[in-house]
């Protein structure tokens, strides 16, 4: 039942209303505002009691799968355990009550924390400068490509109008390149999951502004010839952009800076375990090599003799400017800092070690059941792809059906149909915080579903059976648009 269907005219959560004593003089002041600028129409918010609100939203939450309640191997999303201490400490009154424009003397605790986060991210990625303002990976990508553009423009190198993007790249890559005024040229991937070097050589030229790479790639394999790729692109005058979504696989072992990348973004809500919150918020901190330092988005925290201060447009005239109202998703930055301090030096490396161990273990165990790995001759990184094209063809049961049936087994499904390159694709990322027992449980479930697909496919095709709703009609949702509840429209 929607909250609006529980609304009762005149009902109020009175404890949340400013008291009558506060309203004294308030109505008079409002009446002094120009009548034409005042709202006449009713505000269609629900009229409910505090108990009704608490009950409604508490029960709604129970309908969600989440890391706190289920195994959530959603490929390319790094759904690792979000430590509760990161939440409680980021919400300490001192941080929570601080106005973003509070002067430096009321901001040293906050700014020192951000400064140290910048330093740690530089060390972990091998980059020379970091800005924390991008609000998520996509805006980090935008900042990265915008910096590439600023770099070429400053050198009057206006012919460079093209960004190379591997066909396996995440959709945000091409979308970002276009937002930065570039045309996108896709580079194919070869059978072993590597970027097709020949195609790359053919594609680079004076028109190449840069290439957007993910390493390990979204195919779950490490880009083995990254050094050659870097040389090819750099030789052609282009820059290398690194999509940091898969940093979890190589944390503490390999640094993008050492791979020759000029600019990177990181997804703090993936690698550094800030909450995915039903879709966000995230943080897309960006790192740059020496030559792109002047273009970093502002503000950036700087450590001066007399304490920490903000570097703004005045200090960085060539900066690509601001990407948000203040300084990025502050609370998320605090959470990432807390997580990194708890991991510490050796903890970082163990993240990559055990994320990779878990992925390779799962790949091997699933192959024993007869599932087909997309790249059988490759090591899994922190994730790997299983293709169900055989099952789809022979049993008529595709990847979506397997995914829905996994929900019945009490586990969130892996990412489906991404990257588009691999047919009937399941992109599986267990993360390092899951135990062997949980992985064995997943393997057990995949065994059951395979048997069901062979012996009683209708069970798998009709899944999910055990959730608040059965399979939902996407097509109808797009055809008969119902994006806002209306009292007059029967549901």
């Amino acid at each position: 039942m929607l909250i609006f269907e529980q609304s009762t005219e005149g009902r109020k959560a009175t404890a949340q209303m400013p008291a009558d004593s506060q309203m004294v003089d308030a109505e008079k002041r409002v009446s002094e505002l120009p009548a034409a600028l005042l709202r006449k129409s009713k505000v269609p918010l629900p009229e409910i009691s505090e108990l009704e609100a608490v009950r409604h939203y508490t029960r709604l939450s129970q309908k969600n799968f989440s890391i706190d309640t289920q195994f959530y191997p959603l490929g390319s999303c790094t759904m690792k355990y979000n430590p509760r201490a990161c939440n409680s400490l980021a919400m300490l009154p001192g941080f929570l009550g601080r106005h973003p424009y509070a002067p430096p003397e009321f901001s040293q605790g906050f700014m020192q924390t951000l400064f140290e986060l910048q330093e740690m991210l530089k060390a972990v990625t091998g980059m020379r400068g970091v800005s924390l303002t991008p609000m998520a990976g996509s805006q980090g990508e935008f900042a990265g490509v915008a910096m590439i553009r600023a770099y070429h423009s400053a050198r009057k190198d206006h012919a460079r109008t093209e960004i190379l993007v591997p066909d396996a790249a995440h959709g945000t890559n091409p979308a970002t390149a276009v937002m930065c005024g570039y045309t996108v040229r896709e580079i194919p991937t070869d059978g072993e999951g590597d970027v097709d070097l020949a195609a790359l050589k053919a594609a680079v030229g004076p028109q190449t502004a840069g290439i957007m790479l993910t390493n390990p790639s979204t195919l779950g394999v490490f880009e083995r010839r990254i050094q050659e790729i870097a040389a090819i692109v750099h030789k052609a005058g282009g820059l290398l952009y690194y999509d940091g979504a898969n940093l979890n696989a190589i944390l503490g072992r390999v640094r993008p800076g050492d791979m020759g990348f000029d600019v990177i973004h990181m997804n703090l809500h993936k690698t550094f375990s800030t909450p995915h919150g039903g879709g966000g918020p995230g943080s897309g901190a960006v790192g740059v090599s020496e030559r792109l330092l002047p273009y970093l988005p502002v503000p950036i925290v700087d450590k001066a003799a007399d304490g920490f201060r903000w570097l703004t447009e005045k200090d960085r005239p060539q900066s690509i400017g601001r990407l948000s109202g203040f300084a990025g998703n502050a609370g998320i930055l605090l959470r990432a800092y807390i997580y990194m301090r708890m991991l510490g030096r050796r903890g970082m490396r163990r993240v990559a070690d055990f994320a990779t161990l878990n992925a390779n273990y799962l790949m091997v165990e699933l192959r024993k059941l007869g599932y087909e790995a997309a790249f059988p001759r490759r090591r899994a990184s922190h994730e790997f792809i299983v293709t169900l094209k055989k099952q789809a063809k022979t049993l008529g049961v595709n990847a979506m059906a397997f995914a829905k049936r996994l929900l019945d087994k009490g586990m969130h499904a892996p990412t489906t149909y991404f990257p588009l390159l691999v047919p009937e694709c399941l992109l599986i990322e267990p993360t390092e915080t899951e135990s062997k027992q949980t992985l064995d449980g997943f393997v057990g479930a995949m065994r059951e579903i395979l048997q069901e697909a062979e012996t009683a496919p209708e069970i798998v095709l009709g899944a999910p059976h055990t959730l608040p709703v059965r399979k939902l009609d996407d097509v109808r949702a797009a055809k008969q648009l119902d994006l806002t509840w209306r009292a007059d429209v029967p549901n």
Partner: protein
Amino acid sequence: MPFIPHTDADVKAMLAAIGVDSIDRLFDEIPPALTIADLPEIPEGIGELEITRLMHRRASRDGTPLCFIGAGAYERHIPAAVWQIAGRGEFYSAYTPYQPEASQGTLQLIYEYQTMMAGLTALDVSNASLYDGASALAEAVLMAVRGNRHSKSKRVLVPTTVNPVYRATAHSIVKNQNIELVEVPFSTASGTVAPENLKAYESGDIAAVVLQQPNFFGSLEDAAMLTDWAHQRQALVVAVCDPSSLALLKPPGEWGAAGADIACGDGQPLGVPLSSGGPYYGYICCKQDLVRQMPGRIVGRTVDIEGRSGFVLTLQAREQHIRRSKATSNICTNQGLVVTASTIYMGLLGPEGLRRVAAVSHRNTRRLAERLARIKGVSVAFDSAYFQECVLRFEQPVAGILQELAQRNILGGFDLSEHYPQLGNALLVCATETKTDEDIELYAQTLAEILKK
């Protein structure tokens, strides 16, 4: 080292199953030259006890000054239930609802959020969220240019009464798509856009006109006039509003004859703590006919195979994971958790609660402005009506005054001299419903003392 459950026995069994003798072997595809042995600059890991001690020290160092700054982030009382529910693991640690049947909690909540925001702005449709108010203006401008079937130009009029940081952000985001943001001056008497300010743009093809109400100074623009002016020139109207004012002020959908086409802004004043600048969330609403131009996620209602009502992400064809380079926006992760809290806030406050909070905030700022203006050397800068924020003029640079106030644990407001030198010694002040009459009196007495020196 924390958050790794593997015991030695587990590792041994897993390596055996994979058929390698060590974890290092799993990285054998990585060129040795690229492999590092250690991260010397990163400090050793510390346990929860030590990090708790450290962060308590850091948080308490920043103190709890009395805050009269608005300028895009407003101190609100937030009901205790809001974040106690939003912090539940099922909301906190889920992700984008790619599997709708396993995410009906998040999906229904977003559908309710979309309904509330469309209702507040009196427009038809809302998306699930954008990053914040500033980047939402950029997306709204891109959307208006995309959505304007009449205008060929990519010229967008943006009065300088719109939040300067919003304008700067919009510029840095849209500048590479040859969109021209044309700054329109304002009347320094009224602090709002006067008809004569529009003279220079009478003719010429304009894709859209942006209008912030109340504007950055808290002054109330003649929204009807500007909306009709834009529509008469086939330009779309992009409204920028503090959503917590819309229970009191005329909503964008009711501006002028046809109403604004797109409304956007920051949802922070609806239940999101100041939290040093974020995470907040950007909202964006539009008329039905522009829905396919909407950036970001949108939730739609549908039915399951047994006719039960349910919710899914819809119109995904616009989005980057399907349309890739032709997507309406590159946004993927949005501000989900913050929207969850804000939706609970709007449910708890309801129409009457929002109206009262807005009315009391307005009252408090009116009394603050009147009280401060009684001090010699302090006057209200503009003659226009204002809402919840107001500009005061001083006879000496504001920076020094603010520093003195800060030493007495009061954040006096936002210094306008950097962005609006033409306004002289101008200070933007705001007193929300969290301020008591005693707080206002303390500010006045402290200021009087400072100005006497």
